């Protein structure tokens, strides 16, 4: 029977982090870029909880994960408000087409 250990959690979080960065770099829709950011934050959360559980570092890591979840919610709220505002002014949310500021 395979025992699930620290390295398995780290492996999952590394995959999530890479997927998140891949999404941020390749997606053109602003909402999908923000979903990539959420993946990165949750990868860090898995790390925090896994380290605090398997490293015997006390409860700290799990509390940090809670902080991060709350902040991610706050960030998503502000991000969506900004994206909505972009949609009102530009009538799309494609990151490549919003470029009035380029010289």
């Amino acid at each position: 029977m395979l025992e699930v250990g620290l390295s398995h959690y780290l492996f999952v979080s590394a995959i999530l982090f890479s997927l998140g960065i891949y999404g941020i770099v390749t997606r053109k829709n602003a909402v999908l870029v923000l979903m990539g950011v959420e993946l990165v934050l949750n990868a860090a959360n898995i790390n925090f909880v896994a380290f605090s559980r398997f490293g015997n570092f006390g409860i700290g890591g799990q509390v940090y994960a809670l902080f991060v979840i709350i902040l991610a919610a706050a960030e998503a709220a502000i991000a969506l408000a900004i994206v909505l505002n972009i949609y009102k002014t530009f009538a799309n949310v494609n990151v490549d087409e919003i470029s009035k500021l380029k010289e």
Partner: protein
Amino acid sequence: MDLSFITESLYFVKPEIAASASIILLVLLDLIFHKNKTIIPYVALAGIIITGIFVVDQFNISGFAFLSTDNPKYGMIAVDNFGAFFKLIIIISSIFVVAFSAYSDEINKITDRLGEYYALIFGMILGMLVLISASDLILIYLSMELLSLSSYVLAGFTKLRDRSSEASLKYLLYGATSTGMMLFGISILYGLTGSTNLYIISAALQTQSLNLLTLAFSIILIFAGIGYKISSAPFHFWTPDVYEGAPISITAYLSVASKAAGFALLIRFIKTTFVTFVDDNGNWQLLQVFDWESLLIIISLLTMTLGNFTALWQRNLKRMLAYSSIAHAGYLMLGLLVFSNQGLIAILIYFTIYLFMNLGAFFIVMVIANKTGSEDIDDYDGLGFKSSFLGVSLAIFLVSLTGLPPTAGFIGKLYLFIALVDAKMLTVAIIALLNTVVSLYYYIRVLKHMFLTSPTEKTEKIPLNFGQIAVIIIMLIPILLFGVYFSPVVDLAKSYITILGF
């Protein structure tokens, strides 16, 4: 339950408490005075001044607040002279930004959301104050997010203009990505060392043998977050777009205060985590776990070269000042990469001067944009003849940004270069010097448009009221005075370099 440790901690966070109270007060006043909001800027100014009094009160006080449960010797917030100095820079620039906003047509058009504007500025102030003295990675992340979230909204505050909305979207996307990467780096560092407190991490790095490759990976990720705040290459791509699109008062604030907080964080992070002791000559002895020196040299030279060379062909003055502020981040990093007290003194001197010269340049650009509605360099043709006071003042600020005597900018650069030469980094010093020469071109080009081009029929006389002239003169005095009589700044900087733990 014993709560005395909390009440004792509150003594160290009085400025932060005052800033938080101001946020609540401003939101309430916004609700109460929903018709006439003229009182709100005065309340904001009073809040900043009260916060400033508490900051001045913190001079020469040192100690930890909110002690760590793992090791009660250390805490989450380190109060020391170094932090107090940077907090004072934040407070002074906040006062100027409130003055800027009062004279900004962009902001004054939005009378109904004025309460939000100042409440968000206080959100930034609170974030920066905590960021400067945070000595725990989680607190660093939280305060950085507080600062960032407030500034995303402020960058797009004039939301009906498409340029402003675009600025806020770009700021958000770059910011969210780099703080996310920073958080991942923090989580790895936590796993490696078992703590998020910088002092405990430092002890762990000294005693345990860690996987240096993983450590380097986590440090580079954390540096991505800090580098984005100070707009250093290769994390600077947001800077020109955001600076151009955001309201000018916010641009000025981001270029000075937010950068100061980022630098304070970078210096504190490196010094508490990676420096074992400071020898008698003031040189910092770095731990041999990560090659900070090479990283900082490469990034600093890359930042200033990219900033200066891209600024050469900018026609929008706000965008040009954005690239110039990127270049200045590179210069400021020169003071850090020598890893000595002398370099730290040079950074503090440079920041004191940079505060006045950069805010001054942005204020004049704003006053002109209020009248002409654009920041294009062609609108400055013959301005020196039509509005000579503005022309001469802008010339002084730009000459000071270049770093020519007799302005204060020269003193700032001089101390940085002396620190470099003393650390025997001649190659770096020469490249930085050549960069200064390049920067001369684009600063002086503005002077050429103002004084050597004859006024066109488009050029108007810019009307100035008493308050605007007073703000400009208050910023001009330090630039001219410190250029010839700089010993007070140097003495001040020398007495404010103590970081807790050394």
